[in-house]
């Protein structure tokens, strides 16, 4: 199991050091600094074995988090734990930075004592932790006995992510379907790989212990219902259903029920959380098509023309469109002409950045550039990195639709109809690249 946990700033100074196992000594702290943070070459693996001690490391802004062990631990678990720890810290004091870590070091030690025992991760749900680890340590003293046992049963219990007795005057929930669409396209316009990775993010303000049921146009469910229900109904909705390659759920979702009935039921945590993640690869709507044209004119000149086409309903608007066109390292000057938006050559990024604020569907726009090059004797050809794109669209490129989200709370007197529900679809570019 995890033998020790260290947090460093970018200079390699220790901010937090907590040792859980006897086999990790103080020298381990220095070993990591010397061999990883101060290493001359960038370390090429997130797991480093230094003097028979293995270090798992992640970096958040300028802060390094490292877990050390001398045993054959579950590597996946250690990384998951490090991410979880970042989540917990963010939930307590916001961004993870050197300043924030220093400002909260007592709190961090307290958290580390709680969420890791002898190197074994324990309950690390921020919601539950916040009930008894507070920055005002005195609070724990004035709790009544009931309160205490309520805390412990929540921390250890089946529903460790929600406490009882939550009350809201207005029962409300917000549901965001956030998708990022990823594409790798050949210069000829052939799709090399494309997938959507989506998340269903919720914000729930519901009283009591509500039982929720979430439904979407999952092909498997729709087909099943289509068979059972009337024919034309199945055919109608069948068209709009989507094939989900795989999905994963927040720990509140009853997985065995999903496995057997493919229904998503759960008691939600209070506040913000990510209900599910999913991935689709079939019938993806690719919101933009990028058509590059690069011509080398002699050794010192390059002509680039890039056309972008928006490929969705004309009534919808895409936003924050950004096209990054890489340029060779020996670029000396760039002339740009674009039909829409603004374009600039950024020498520091070795790229032309073309920004368009808004663009409606079924439109087309283009940019052309003349790039002047300095003559070099470098034999190696320019690697031609792909043209990448960023954008935001108000629909789900996978075609996912929320069919329902039902809320039942048998003990309190509010029904599904009383809950105010908001649903929003946001499609964003993930890694959206076209080779040129």
């Amino acid at each position, binding site marked *: 199991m995890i033998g020790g946990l260290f947090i460093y700033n970018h200079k390699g100074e220790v901010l937090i050091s907590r040792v859980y196992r006897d086999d990790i000594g103080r020298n381990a*702290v220095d070993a990591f600094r010397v061999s990883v943070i101060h290493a001359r070459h960038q370390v090429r693996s997130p797991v480093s074995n230094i003097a028979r001690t293995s270090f798992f490391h992640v970096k958040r802004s300028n802060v390094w988090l490292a877990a050390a062990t001398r*045993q054959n631990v579950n590597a996946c678990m250690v990384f998951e734990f490090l991410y979880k720890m970042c989540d917990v810290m963010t939930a307590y004091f916001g961004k993870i930075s050197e300043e924030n870590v220093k400002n909260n*070091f007592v709190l961090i030690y307290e958290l580390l004592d709680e969420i890791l025992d002898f190197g074994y991760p324990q*309950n690390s749900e921020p919601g539950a932790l916040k009930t008894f680890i507070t920055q005002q340590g005195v609070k724990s003293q004035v709790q009544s006995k009931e309160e205490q046992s309520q805390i412990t049963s929540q921390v250890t*219990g089946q529903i460790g992510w929600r406490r009882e007795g939550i009350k809201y005057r207005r029962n409300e929930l917000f549901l965001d379907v956030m998708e990022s669409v990823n594409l790798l396209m050949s210069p000829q316009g052939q799709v090399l790989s494309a997938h959507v990775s989506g998340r269903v993010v919720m914000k729930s303000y519901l009283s009591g212990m509500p039982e929720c049921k979430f439904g979407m146009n999952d092909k498997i469910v729709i087909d099943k219902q289509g068979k059972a229900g009337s024919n034309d109904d199945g055919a109608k909705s069948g068209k709009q259903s989507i094939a989900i390659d795989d999905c*994963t759920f927040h*720990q509140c979702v009853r*997985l065995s029920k999903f496995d057997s009935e493919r229904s998503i039921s759960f008691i939600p945590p209070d506040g913000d959380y990510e209900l599910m993640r999913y991935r689709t690869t079939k019938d993806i709507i690719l919101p933009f098509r990028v058509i590059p044209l690069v011509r080398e004119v002699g050794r010192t000149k390059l002509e680039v023309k890039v056309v972008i086409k928006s490929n969705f309903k004309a009534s919808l608007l895409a936003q924050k469109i950004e096209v990054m066109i890489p340029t060779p390292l020996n670029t000396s000057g760039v002339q740009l002409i674009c039909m829409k938006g603004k374009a600039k050559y950024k020498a520091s990024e070795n790229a032309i950045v073309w920004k368009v604020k808004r663009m409606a569907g079924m439109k087309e726009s283009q940019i052309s550039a003349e790039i002047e090059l300095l003559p070099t004797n470098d034999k190696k050809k320019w690697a031609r990195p792909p043209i990448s794109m960023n954008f935001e669209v108000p629909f789900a490129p996978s075609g996912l639709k929320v069919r329902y989200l039902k809320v039942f709370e048998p003990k309190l007197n509010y029904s599904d109809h009383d809950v105010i529900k908001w649903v929003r679809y946001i499609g964003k570019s993930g890694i959206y690249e076209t080779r040129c």
Partner: protein
Amino acid sequence: MTDSKYFTTTKKGEIFELKAELNSDKKEKKKEAVKKVIASMTVGKDVSALFPDVVNCMQTDNLELKKLVYLYLMNYAKSQPDMAIMAVNTFVKDCEDLNPLIRALAVRTMGCIRVDKITEYLCEPLRKCLKDEDPYVRKTAAVCVAKLHDINAQLVEDQGFLDTLKDLISDSNPMVVANAVAALSEIAESHPNSNLLDLNPQTINKLLTALNECTEWGQIFILDCLANYSPRDDRESQSICERVTPRLSHANSAVVLSAVKVLMKFMEMLPKDLDYYGTLLKKLAPPLVTLLSAEPELQYVALRNINLIVQRRPEILKHEMKVFFVKYNDPIYVKLEKLDIMIRLASQANIAQVLAELKEYATEVDVDFVRKAVRAIGRCAIKVEQSAERCVSTLLDLIQTKVNYVVQEAIVVIKDIFRKYPNKYESVIATLCEHLESLDEPEARAAMIWIVGEYAERIDNADELLESFLEGFHDESTQVQLQLLTAIVKLFLKKPTETQELVQQVLSLATQDSDNPDLRDRGYIYWRLLSTDPVAAKEVVLAEKPLISEETDLIEPTLLEELICHIGTLASVYHKPPSAFVEGSRGVQHKRLTSSAGSGESVESPDTGSAAVSEAPPTVIPSQGDLLGDLLNLDLTPPTSTGPPPTTAPGMQLGAMDLLGGGLDSLLGGDIGGSPAMGTGFGAPPAAMPASFNAPISGGLDDLFDLGGGGGLTMGTYIPPKSVWLPAMKAKGLEISGTFVRRSGVIQMEMTLNNKAMSVMSDFAIQFNRNSFGLAPAGPLQILTPISPNQSIEAALPLSTVGPVMKMEPLNNLQVAVKNNIDVFYFSCQYPISMLFLEDGKMERQVFLATWKDIPNENESQFQIKDCHLNSDAASNKLQGSNIFTIAKRTVEGQDMLYQSMKLTNGIWVLAELRVQAGNPNYTISLKCRAPEVSQCVFQNYETVLKN
């Protein structure tokens, strides 16, 4: 208010100031001071001097302050054990506190203080806490048992905590169950045979129930524990799999990967024709692909594991090639791993796509990645035959880019392609030669030189090319030097007329001017080979080479099996067994997959199989598989017999003679009249050698033979027990153990071949290297049926003694090569020399006397045999069973003198005088022989026969 200010106090006299503050009356000030202490501790300053002052702050109502003091205690208690005792009272009191959080905190902290005296006081509170009404306290106490076990294992056992911990597996609270499982698993690891985690269907059922209810971390503990269970039959296996599969949809990748581990392991038990088996295979692919959209560090762990899974069950991901395409912004460690998997998944169906991608990667920036991409193209060519041509042309395109490291990498892989597809792509050699100048890496230079040497007849200026390398011979790396030597010898054998000078030059460079033994040895071998028999040299040097295959970069099957059992852990990241990087006893047990072979019978526990292997270590194996030995047989022919070779220079003659002198002559020739040729001396083959005697014999038949052959007075030949000659680890899962027997004049090698790999083995063949007594198989190895996994088969191989001869060290060493459909394996073993004692080894008395006198005294050697309690008659009887015949017996002053003789298959006589004194367990033996080299062996044989 912020805490960062505590980090900035660095002035002198700090400790003194802190001391004052710690003893202040004001609570706030105290707390501030403790915070400062902790901050100093974090940055590595020694604040142990403040121990008593900090411990004094422990008695407080303020929980935050208390936790800080505890943190300090955990760090420094070990350095101040006596003062740490001061804290015990507070701990004990806190364990009785009304607030469960405080009770748990106390027991948790106490377990972290590794001081004996404190540990003693821990037992009582811990016992109470294990039965606490509050689950939070119980789950903390469960882990505390593991902590205590780490400090003092005996104490934990004596106090009966292990039983209490076992009871917690049935606790009503899922988190208590999970922590108890984690603690028990850890304790069980340090007691491999304790059966502590007594996994039976009932407990498994409890674990599976808790699995649905506990936290994500708890699910991981439980799944990792489940993976160690061996289901009794395929039905149980299936029902566990069914209850584990829902975990594949968990958001936590570690839960997913641990579930994959359980499924991969239990799948082995399922019959392949089962519908469920197919369903399960299909269910595994999507979650594995989903892992690739996690954070890069997790992707890396996932990819390392997928690499293993793909090798074990390629069918799972065979359609998912695209997800392993490299993204421009992937971190380098993800890119490199993806590349590996792409090659593993490459097949005829997707090769076009893969090649297009690889070509794209070869133009990227990162040097390592580009190199690996180029190498990958070569591996594709070797793996998918249909793509070879396209790969070669892609590689040629890349060579045209003239990027130095791309060219070099391409040449290295093209060499492999030549080896896989001889006589197909040699037309590209001209292009390769153009780039000769730019090669500066040893591997690429060596590869190029190999190509020039191998195809010297097609390259007009091969001699010039090689000569150009020769100029800086001593500055080259060994790899290049060796290759250059071989290449020039090849060139010489192909174009002898023009290249004499060149070959002479390289031979003298290698043998005289180099201090590298490998290089010198190889130089001498070639030199002698060329000078002795150029025709043979041609056969040896230009022999057809075995084709290389793609399997070379696969993980060895037994290791792969073990790693599959460690999916998700560090072992699977490093691709090494835990024993390779974990110190001490922890986690060093080898795990193995249990397959469906014995679904009806009780299944072997995962550990026993490998334990058996390690118990019987292989017998002495000196100089494994010394193939070069073959080439050294020059000693047998006098160096003058062949005409002087054209290239022989005086200096060389000298060098060669040195090595040729001495040697075996006395052994081989001495006894048979000093004739330098050995042919006659090796006598006729053993009289009775039934040719049909080579089918595998069952045990029963064996016994009969024994009775028939060795009846009467003799007590039967001593047969050494079988020992492992070739361990499975070294031979891709084939284990060979065996022994030698001599029955009615026939020498037999009896072997047990055990298939410990996962695939069927067939097409067995066996060959011996030349050895001291010319042992050779008298017929082919008769293994008629293929050996399926986990099956073992007995084979008996009759041996003749008319094979080629070469002196071995030790004399009775035998080097064996066994071939099967997988590979060729080499091992060596030693046979008892009594195998070679002939049945007609009884000398006439007179002859004995004359011979004894005739052999010079310096050939006599004396040995002691200790602790032998047989009387002289019994000894004589026993020895006769091994064809050591007693010719006369004399008794002088209570001492029996036995005169004995034996005759070796090559006609050498050995005479012996064995002195046995009644009441003295130590025998003295004198051996006389014209070839004194055998004495040592004969003596050893006496010892083994007499003592068994």
